């Protein structure tokens, strides 16, 4: 995994998301989720290409149920975009890169 992407856990989520200087896109994913694997390389590209606009974090829902539950994640991949600690966009399901970027950009 790219070192541009931060791994989040139940323990670190609030601190990392709360103190992020740029908007942070959090990928709720799991090892057993096929569509999550499909978008993983897209997110790695975005992490590099869009690093001036937003940062990306990943949260494994298997190991971090509390955070997934807190944000009512019921389908993965779910991407939540946080600005100043608040959810400003919610993208559910794998999508092509262009569509993902368009939806993210619309909420930046």
């Amino acid at each position: 995994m790219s070192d541009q992407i931060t791994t989040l856990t139940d323990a670190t989520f609030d601190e990392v998301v709360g103190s992020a200087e740029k908007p942070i896109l959090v990928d709720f994913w799991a090892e057993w989720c096929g569509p999550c694997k499909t978008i993983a390389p897209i997110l790695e590209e975005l992490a590099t290409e869009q690093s001036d606009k937003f940062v990306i974090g990943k949260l494994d829902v298997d190991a971090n149920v509390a955070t997934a539950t807190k944000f009512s994640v019921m389908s993965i991949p779910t991407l939540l975009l946080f600005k100043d600690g608040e959810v400003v966009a919610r993208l559910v399901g794998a999508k092509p890169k262009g569509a993902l970027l368009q939806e993210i950009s619309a909420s930046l």
Partner: protein
Amino acid sequence: MNHHTEVLIIGSGPAGLTAAIYAARAQLSPVVIEGEPSSTTDQPGGQLMVTTEVENFPGFVDGVQGPDLMTSMRAQALRFGADLRVTKVHKLDLSQRPFRAWTSEDHEAPSFSADSVILATGARSLMLNVPGEDRLLSHGLSTCATCDGFFFRGQDIAVIGGGDSALEEALFLTRFARTVTVVHRRDELRASKIMQERSRAHDKIDFAWNTQVTDVLGHDRVSGLRVVDTVTGESRTLDVTGVFVAIGHVPNTSLVEGQLELDDNGYVITGPGTYTSVEGVFAAGDVQDHEYRQAITSAGSGAMAAIDAERWLETQGR
């Protein structure tokens, strides 16, 4: 700017990728339009990308995961030089040769021209088309047990359908759910014997026979299903917090409607072999088959389509 190819393959499930392997080995330099990422079956790799264990694909003694099988087929097609493109065909013109395909709506000029086309666009899941379904999709209603089953730990959930895919989902979901009710509108299942026996023997699985869903209930997440008994007409509520839909498939033929002959069910008519009603256009896999619909039969018809295309191209003096 348009790319010409001898063989354009549309679709990248077992049919499309097997056709690609055969056509590439036959030095036909096929281009494969794989599709785009999604969480439905409409994605590179097709329906197997949202299944788990495939136990009946020959050669895999201990079974193989659907996505792993597709990853291997893709790698095999690449090994022989198939040109795989992660995009979708938005428009296809089969009225003149070479055939033409547009992969981006922004361009007026076609992206590809092709001497022959292998259509392997597969089939997609049918939805219930009842009130509440759209609103609650991804909020307790799902078409992908392997994607979303995890979120229903300890809950009571329903699987709608009576075929192999419904029972496969039901059995998979028993890993997480407290109970799984299979809701089926008839009093017998279409599924294979082995899947029926496994489901009936499972102590978490229950069946609601002769039961049709009329509403998915819940405001911002599923709280139940409104169902009607198809024999007595009586209506009742099933208290479930998760609903998985597996009621069958429709072929993906929107690209060829009005261009290829389709049967009464909307599937592409093929024969002899994989020949369609337009010379030079071949069809393989679930887009032309509602009888067998297996990974292995799809792959088999993909091989047939590549061989048919190769021989047809030879008759055209290629």
